[in-house]
């Protein structure tokens, strides 16, 4: 979906067109779940946050001064709700606190779990990019639009994230990974 089509849908939604708003919901719901998941590491909670974000957007859509920036505005709402929820929770994600696993042999599922841990250790804004790129399969330009940053920033942060993952894999599972 392009900025223009977003803007058209938002404009229609502002006039009370539920169909248009539902299309925006449909488009962004998975993206919001991904963004919320990077803060909460809990799929159910992430879905709840995504719904709340859509609800808040519905409520406050009249405050959106630039309809073409709907994606970034909506993502920011979602991020803030997720952060509020994360703050209120006790330290929860085992993966965040996972300690290095030494030099034991890793099976494939272990490697995936290890990478998941490393991703959850990344800075939250970098996590967003990783999930939007790999889970939501979004282009760099689309990620830039949703996160309201430049494409160069997306490229740079994603490159650094990959490098960090690679290094951690080599450190934590050197016998299995030769990346």
């Amino acid at each position, binding site marked *: 979906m392009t900025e223009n089509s977003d803007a058209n849908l938002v404009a229609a939604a502002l006039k009370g067109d539920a169909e248009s*708003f539902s299309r925006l919901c449909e488009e962004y719901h998975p993206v919001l779940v991904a963004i919320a998941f990077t803060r909460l590491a809990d799929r*159910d909670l992430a879905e709840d946050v995504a719904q*709340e974000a859509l609800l808040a957007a519905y409520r406050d859509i009249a405050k959106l001064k630039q309809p073409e920036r709907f994606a970034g505005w909506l993502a920011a709402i979602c991020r803030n709700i997720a952060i509020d929820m994360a703050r209120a929770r006790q330290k929860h994600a085992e993966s965040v606190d996972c300690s290095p696993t030494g030099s034991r042999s890793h099976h494939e599922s272990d490697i995936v*779990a290890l*990478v*998941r841990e490393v991703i959850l250790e990344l800075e939250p804004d970098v996590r967003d990019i990783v999930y939007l790129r790999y889970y939501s399969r979004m282009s760099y330009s689309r990620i830039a639009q949703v996160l309201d940053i430049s494409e160069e920033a997306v490229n740079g942060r994603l490159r650094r994230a*990959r490098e960090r993952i690679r290094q951690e894999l080599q450190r934590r599972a050197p016998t299995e990974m030769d990346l």
Partner: protein
Amino acid sequence: MNHRNDEDRLDEIITRATDIGKVEFDRAEWLRRVVTRPQQKTWRRIMESKVTRVSAAATILVAASLVLFNPFDLLDTRHGVVLAEAARKASEMRTSVGTCSRTVWYQGQDEPCLKAETTVYASSKKGYMEEQHDAAGNLTHRAYILNESRRFVLVDPAEKKYLETSMSGDIFEQIAATLTPGGLLQRITAGPYTELGRRQLDGVEVEGFGTSDPEVLSVPRALRFLFPVNDITAQVWIDVDSSLPVELVIHFTTDRGLLTGFRKLRAEFRTHDIQWNPEIPAELFDPNIPEDYTPVNLASVTRENAAWLGVGALPIVGFAVYRRRRRRRSSRDVCENILATSD
């Protein structure tokens, strides 16, 4: 392994590591429920998330409103002598005042997230009023359910805000009928219950009755998605001399809901020090909201977005119901109830 293969391998692993499963938004279902139904202004107010998401006071209040309390209209004499007499006596009471000690935990945690003492006033004529203080003695809220105007009012002195909404039809009746100690007694006696025997309570001989029947003690079906209470157990302890309830204890757990702040909760509400037929000043049931208090949630409803809001409350209800529908088949019935009971 060459560089290209390394990169592909890394991409593949990251893709798998970030896979949280397919997420779908059922637009057709959402539209069907949103567009084809009339407006529901009352529900929009109740569901407005700014109130419901953050307000522990509202959460606890509504929990209390939905599952607790009540002494009136106890005419069922099918049960044993003690219960029947208690029901008869309670039905004669015009007023009651009690203290409800409320403790709420997030499920899985040992430390409560809320400990509060709430003074609860009930009048068969005026309605219901409660005043809650936290563990530090700070007033956290006053809440009213007013018979004459059929209004629900929640006042938050700390924030100088208030929520006010009308409640019509069956929903008001269901809530208003369960707001006092006798109401709970009535609920318990309406279905299967367990005799708990006799014991001494603060020097008084009491006889207990309990139930965990979900059909007897439950949040009204149409409200479950707001506050999805599960596993309620309730006990009532009746003074064998006066034949009036002296202690009521409820334990319940919840699923995630809008009014639980999307948390799973467990709670204990213990009502004690109940006075029957005390004089309650009529002014106590007047919210008397100071002029500098602001209404919650209505501020965002401006003329500019009135057209949009004209779509009605159903989008919001739809969100909530949609989520539950995905997780529980029976939520379709819940939605139908909501639609049927809204104004």
